[in-house]
């Protein structure tokens, strides 16, 4: 008798297949871990892929020092629960120059994230890095392969991608090259939430609504997560019931007003909402092709 697999079972099996291929063929793989919901799903899938062995690679957090406190708290616990090593990398030049999102605008993302990631991969000599990017997030992602090749300088060349057929992935590369692998390419935001719900995966509490101190700035609702947040003249923190649809550096991540305090309520809100997920991220607003440009420069 035929047992039709559900779409989540199919997506899960595909991601596991991809992770195992990488471990079988890469010299020194690593999993990028940002503590967000997509990272939580990736980590969960990694545990499933190699069970009863622990995932045979470390987690790498490219830290900007500006993440939400709640993210730092979950980070250590999640790695411990999975029995994996956690590596934390902070760009020393960014530390020295005190790069921050309030004074340095797009330089903040470039130095901490793009440059920090390149430095971390070079420092540790990782040849393959798992990332949790999805094709539904953004137009240039829709065309990126699951195995995405990067030159020695980490740049992405959208015109020179390897064809990917069936479930055959070509992981061969020259010594200086590296590969970014996206096992959840074919998942949508809804799939992620449904999977978290179904599998009971622990996520940062900031995804759930609670009263939090906020200010409104440039049309974004920002949360005051620590004392480093400089208030402008006339700005008074207001306590609002908010949550986050996506998590990054707290001064760059817009919250939404919401009362959704459980996963079903979050999914409900997401299904009834009318704005796309990345709208909360200042980084994508620059220009139409901004993400494609950043990726060519080496951004994940």
């Amino acid at each position: 008798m035929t047992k039709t697999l559900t779409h989540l079972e199919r997506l899960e099996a595909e991601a596991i297949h991809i992770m195992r291929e990488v471990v079988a063929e890469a010299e020194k793989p690593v999993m990028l871990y940002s503590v967000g919901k997509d990272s939580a799903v990736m980590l969960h899938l990694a545990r499933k892929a190699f069970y009863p062995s622990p995932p045979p690679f470390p987690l790498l957090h490219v830290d900007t020092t500006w993440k939400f406190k709640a993210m730092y708290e979950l980070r250590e616990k999640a790695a411990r629960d999975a029995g994996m090593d956690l590596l934390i990398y902070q760009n020393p030049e960014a530390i020295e120059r005190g790069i921050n999102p309030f004074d340095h605008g797009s330089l903040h993302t470039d130095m901490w994230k793009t440059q920090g990631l390149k430095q971390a991969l070079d420092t540790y000599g990782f040849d393959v890095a798992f990332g949790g990017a999805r094709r539904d997030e953004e137009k240039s992602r829709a065309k990126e392969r699951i195995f995405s090749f990067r030159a020695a300088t980490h740049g992405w060349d959208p015109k020179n991608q390897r064809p990917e057929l069936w479930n055959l992935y070509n992981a061969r590369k020259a010594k200086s090259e590296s590969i970014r692998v996206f096992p959840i390419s074919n998942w949508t935001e809804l799939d992620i939430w449904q999977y978290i719900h179904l599998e009971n995966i622990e996520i940062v509490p900031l995804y759930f609504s609670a009263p939090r101190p906020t200010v409104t700035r440039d049309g974004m609702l920002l949360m005051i997560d620590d004392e480093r947040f400089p208030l402008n003249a006339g700005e008074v923190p207001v306590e609002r019931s908010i949550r986050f649809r996506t998590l990054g550096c707290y001064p760059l991540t817009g919250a939404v007003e919401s009362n959704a305090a459980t996963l079903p309520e979050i999914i409900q809100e997401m299904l009834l909402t009318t704005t796309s997920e990345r709208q909360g991220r200042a980084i994508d607003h620059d220009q139409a092709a901004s993400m494609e440009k950043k990726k060519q420069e080496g951004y994940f």
Partner: protein
Amino acid sequence: MPHATSDPVIYKTDDLIAADIDSYLALHQHKSLLRFITCGSVDDGKSTLIGRLLYDSKMIFEDQLVALESDSKRMGTQGQEIDFALLVDGLAAEREQGITIDVAYRFFATEKRKFIVADCPGHEQYTRNMVTGASTADLAVILIDARKGVLIQTRRHSYLAKLLGIRNIVLAVNKMDLIDYDQAKYDAIVAEYSAFATSIGIDDFTAMPISGFKGDNITERSAHMPWYVGQPLIAHLETVALDNDVDQAKPMRMAVQWVNRPNLDFRGFSGQIATGIVRLGDAIRVLPSGKTSTISKIVTFDGDLDEAVAGQSVTLCFADEIDCSRGNVIAAADNPPEVSDQFECTIVWMADEALVPGRAYWLKLGTQTVSATVQSPKYAVNVNNMEHMAAKTLELNAIGVAEIATDKPIVFEPYASNHSLGGFILIDKISNATVAAGMLHFSLRRAQNVHWQATDIGRQAHAALKNQKPKILWFTGLSGSGKSTIANEVEKTLNLLNRHTFLLDGDNIRHGLNKDLGFTETDRIENIRRVGEVAKLMADAGLIVLTAFISPFRAERDMVRAMMPEGEFVEIFVDTPLEVAEARDVKGLYKKARAGQLKNFTGIDSPYEPPENPDICVNTVEMSPAEAAEHIVRLLMPLK
């Protein structure tokens, strides 16, 4: 006539989401997944159709819609109306050109299924993109512009869909609004297509008249075409049979990806079940070894299972300790796949650099990676009219039928019966690029009937009697670099040291064994292959073999290296700059080549690829032949 703009039909049961989210979630966790491709020419309305599917299934958010409306006014091709195509045309460069030029994946869902759409471009030069998208598709939507009918592109897309084994074909006759929903014209197009489809072996397809722009027969049967009695597109996509379900009825196969060994008490084999169903206690056979056992455990993170089906990623444990590793295939014991090393196959070439017959490429099939050589194609297929053409090689986007040989036997099934054990990619050994996709037809009888005959006196016995370690000293360099002279000096020294040697010289071999070969790239590769095989036989006989051949291509030198045990192939680069070799011109060949009397001369009109990491390098500008020989012998010591 005026066209009513259809209102978008909303798939989300908004009421249920708002009223009872838990019931909604329970309902939606059980959707199945269909992957399909859309193919059409530039103006067939492919992007518009996909945009429409996303829009109608409410996958477009308000901010995207606002952007879309402003984009539509700025650069749309539909006047003031929303240009859905702008939703899906991805990269910046492409948006400016107004065309999609690579495979892009889109996602939408209805009440019954989630869909992954591979958006495939229709240009001739992008055959490789369509083949890529088609390789994972359950279904193909072939779009036709109702005003234009069946075009060359339609034939090409249908042929490729058939080639990749897509079982469900939908012929979507689009832009019906522009021919006033005329049934007679539609029927004529379907009849013409039907005749063509039969001629290329497509037995069954589903035709439907639609308008992606206006939304006719997309979600609901169109009021403009009461004469159409079939299902609208979405309903068809929601009900068509899934490949994954069909695969469960086939014999069980799972390619081993990774051996799971967390401690001495556990040894499992991880992989994704390709076809069939595996149950606890099932008798299995591991290929290529043929060893048998039974399934003792089906392990997952969520607990052990009693059975697992095609598509699931699991870890299998056996009742017996038998050898099994990555690249092996676990199969139903009473119905295993074949093992062979020579095949007929169809190849789709995907790289700018053409196929080089005889050259060794990596072949990846399932989890097996082996070295493989492709013969000159039997024929190439003209994808526009399916005619067979004579071909010596395959260029970018060419499709041909050829014989392929692997350096060791692989587990396979014909592509037609099992995509995961019949579909392969070829990888260039130097650039690491994926250069081709292929589909195995059948194994050649000679591979099945010629077996290796084991002999009692092996290569160790031969070598021991001569009291030496066999080697191939492979001299490579330009014509006139001094290969033969230096090799001759080296052999003289080895002879004095009581070594058993033999010198194979390029010119001498071309007087006999290889006198049927010329100097084209293909003949040069065959020249080196034969020399490599002869040198290997001599090394098996215990000799130290010296070869002096230009051997200009890295890939062929590496091919010979791969035939030999580790350490027995010594690549010696006789490094002489072209100017120096040309100035020497001992045989007067450079003069002839410069005068155009000698074609394909290495260094002049045929390339030389110097070794990247030669085992030994001698510079003949700084060293005399005798000094070079002494240097080489010193590095070779000891020879026992």
